[in-house]
């Protein structure tokens, strides 16, 4: 809070709807608030809008890029897998059509065919078998001992009876190894049938999957239509596990959808149903990982926005404060000069009145003077009247009073005359003493002791006598107001160090000025005596007067101990 108070510009303290605020032309706080608000809106809103737009567009572009990448990859992988299966299916179809039933039931012939298939297609084919219409394996060639096994109740067997050709899910079967079956039905002349069954390992699919490099913790695997994994996946379970998210709806084309993983993570899922098989090719990517690079860019964008907004706000705040403060200062100067003029006018009329009064009083005073002088002369010179000490004392009292009144009227006249600029050579001490004459009665009544110390090498200065009188009068009045009765005022007059001017220091032992008020006491309308009728203008006018005659005024104070005003004046006002 104290930091805020320090940087708070002066206009901020002018509360609206106070008499102080009425003096100013504008409500500066409101101007400041509105200008900051409006400029901020105009400057920051478009920036935020454009940034948000850019954010949105980039995000959408990236997402669509990721989608199309995923779709592309799903299509390509689907093509490869689909081709792999249909190629083998066609080969088996050809074998069934090319070989009579007896030939296929010949174990040697079947072994020859298996060898040819393994040579021709490379990996894939594990074994071959011929199963009769009762589901019993009649002939078998391959690494497992599956001769005479009964397949009547196996789902794939029931399917091939109806469909002629069938590709099965991946299952363990009798051999307890994950494999799938391509079965082709061969009609026999006696209206029964037999089935050529080839089993394929999942190795080739796994290999195809592994070859794909996928960004964003990507995963590729096969599932069947019940959601059971048909190949091992990297992140979503092993073969025969249940896929941790629902099976997508059927679509003849490659599709990309958004899904949610078991931990609630957002997924980008590309899939394709492989026609003629129970398989669905799945490509699953984690959106969070995919968007990692985007998040980095987004962070930079947000940082850029924050930085720009901060910079703009700083510039707006700075310039608005600067402008409003200068407006306020100009207004204050205007007010100050208005008051100065008012003050000068007031002083001038006081001066004119003083001159008139002094003149009117001077003539009767002169008459009293001469008459009383004559009375005294009659007693002292003529000797014709008996010298009466009491009478002479009375006459002396009259003459003294006249002298004093005369001194004051002369000062009044000098004061009124000095209200107009009057540059002349004078000794500051004389001006101080002239001013003290006005305050003689107050000084005496309040028992204030005034001491003047003048350094011997002090030289006269060329300055404006009237302004000096006003300055000294204000300072001494101020000191008197701060002092209690029987206080002490000390006035030191000495040359400056370079002897190019004079320093006059007024020190009182009054109540002092609080530290926080000390640097504000020369501000216009600043007063701690408002309750006692202070206008808060005295010291600010003094300050201006001192500057007008080329001087400087400083103040130092200790609360409870007293205050010192130091006025430094140039040797000559012209310099």
């Amino acid at each position: 809070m104290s930091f805020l108070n320090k940087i708070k510009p002066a206009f901020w303290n002018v509360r609206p709807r106070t008499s102080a605020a009425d003096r100013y032309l504008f409500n500066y706080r409101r101007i400041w608030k509105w200008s900051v608000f409006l400029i901020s809106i105009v400057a920051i809103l478009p920036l935020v809008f454009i940034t948000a737009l850019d954010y949105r567009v980039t995000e959408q572009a990236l997402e669509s890029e990721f989608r199309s990448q995923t779709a592309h990859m799903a299509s390509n992988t689907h093509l490869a897998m689909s081709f792999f299966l249909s190629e083998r299916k066609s080969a088996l179809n050809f074998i069934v059509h090319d070989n009579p039933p007896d030939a296929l039931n010949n174990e040697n012939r079947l072994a020859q065919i298996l060898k040819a298939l393994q040579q021709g297609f490379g990996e894939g084919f594990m074994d071959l078998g011929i199963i009769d219409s009762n589901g019993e394996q009649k002939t078998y060639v391959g690494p497992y001992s599956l001769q005479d096994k009964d397949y009547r109740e196996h789902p794939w067997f029931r399917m091939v009876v109806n469909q002629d050709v069938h590709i099965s899910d991946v299952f363990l079967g009798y051999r307890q190894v994950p494999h799938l079956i391509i079965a082709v039905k061969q009609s026999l002349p006696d209206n029964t049938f037999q089935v050529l069954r080839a089993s394929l390992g999942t190795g080739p699919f796994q290999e195809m999957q592994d070859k794909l490099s996928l960004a964003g913790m990507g995963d590729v695997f096969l599932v069947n239509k019940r959601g059971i994994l048909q190949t091992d996946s990297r992140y979503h379970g092993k073969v025969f596990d249940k896929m941790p998210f629902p099976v997508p709806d059927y679509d003849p084309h490659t599709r990309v959808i958004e899904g949610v993983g078991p931990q609630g993570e957002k997924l980008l899922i590309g899939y394709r149903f492989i026609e003629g098989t129970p398989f669905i090719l799945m490509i699953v990517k984690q959106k969070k990982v995919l968007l990692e690079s985007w998040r980095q860019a987004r962070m930079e964008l947000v940082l850029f926005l924050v930085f720009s907004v901060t910079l703009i706000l700083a510039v707006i705040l700075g310039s608005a404060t600067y402008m409003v403060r200068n407006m306020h200062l100009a207004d204050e100067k205007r007010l100050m000069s208005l008051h100065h003029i008012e003050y000068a006018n007031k002083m001038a009329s006081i001066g004119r009145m003083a001159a008139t009064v002094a003149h009117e009083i001077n003539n009767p005073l002169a008459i009293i003077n001469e008459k009383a002088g004559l009375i005294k002369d009659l007693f002292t010179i003529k000797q014709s009247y008996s010298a009466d000490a009491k009478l002479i004392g009375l006459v002396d009292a009259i003459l003294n009073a006249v002298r004093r009144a005369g001194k004051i009227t002369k000062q009044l006249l000098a004061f009124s005359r000095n209200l107009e600029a009057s540059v002349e050579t004078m000794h500051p001490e004389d001006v101080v003493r002239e001013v003290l004459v006005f305050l003689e009665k107050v000084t005496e009544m309040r028992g204030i002791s005034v001491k003047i110390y003048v350094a011997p090498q002090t030289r006269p200065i060329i300055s404006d006598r009237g302004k000096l009188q006003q300055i000294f009068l204000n300072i001494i009045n101020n000191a008197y107001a701060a002092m209690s009765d029987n206080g002490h005022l000390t006035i030191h007059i000495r040359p400056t160090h370079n002897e190019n001017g004079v320093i006059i220091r007024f020190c009182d032992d009054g109540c002092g000025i609080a530290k926080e008020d000390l640097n504000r006491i020369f501000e216009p309308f600043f007063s701690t005596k408002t309750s006692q009728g202070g206008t808060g203008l005295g010291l600010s006018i003094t300050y201006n007067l001192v500057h007008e005659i080329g001087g400087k005024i400083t103040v130092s104070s200790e609360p409870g101990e007293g205050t010192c005003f130091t006025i430094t004046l140039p040797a000559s006002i012209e310099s």
Partner: protein
Amino acid sequence: MRVLLVDDEVDLASALAERLDMRGIEADWVSAGADAIKRVEEKKYDVAVLDVKMPGISGLDLKARLEQIDPGMKFIFLTGYGSEIDFKELTCRAGETSCLVKPIDIHDLISMMNSLVKKPERG
């Protein structure tokens, strides 16, 4: 030494004249410029003490007239208006240095008169 006092304030002029008489200075007084001219034509005075502001004719104008009649005459101006500095600026700008502001001290007046009369030439 003979002195002529010219002041529209009769009370002041008469009292001052009497006080000067007591001190051995022969002082006549008049309250109007016309009377002053008449007196100077009749009689020789060393010094004329003139009020600056008088009805009819001002102290300065009167001085010019009296100088025509008696070129050797010295002048002292009195005024109740303005301070000494002010008065000096207004009146003594015309070359006069002998000025006093009311209420005056009789001793100042006498010493001023003495110094004027002693001087062979007006300074």
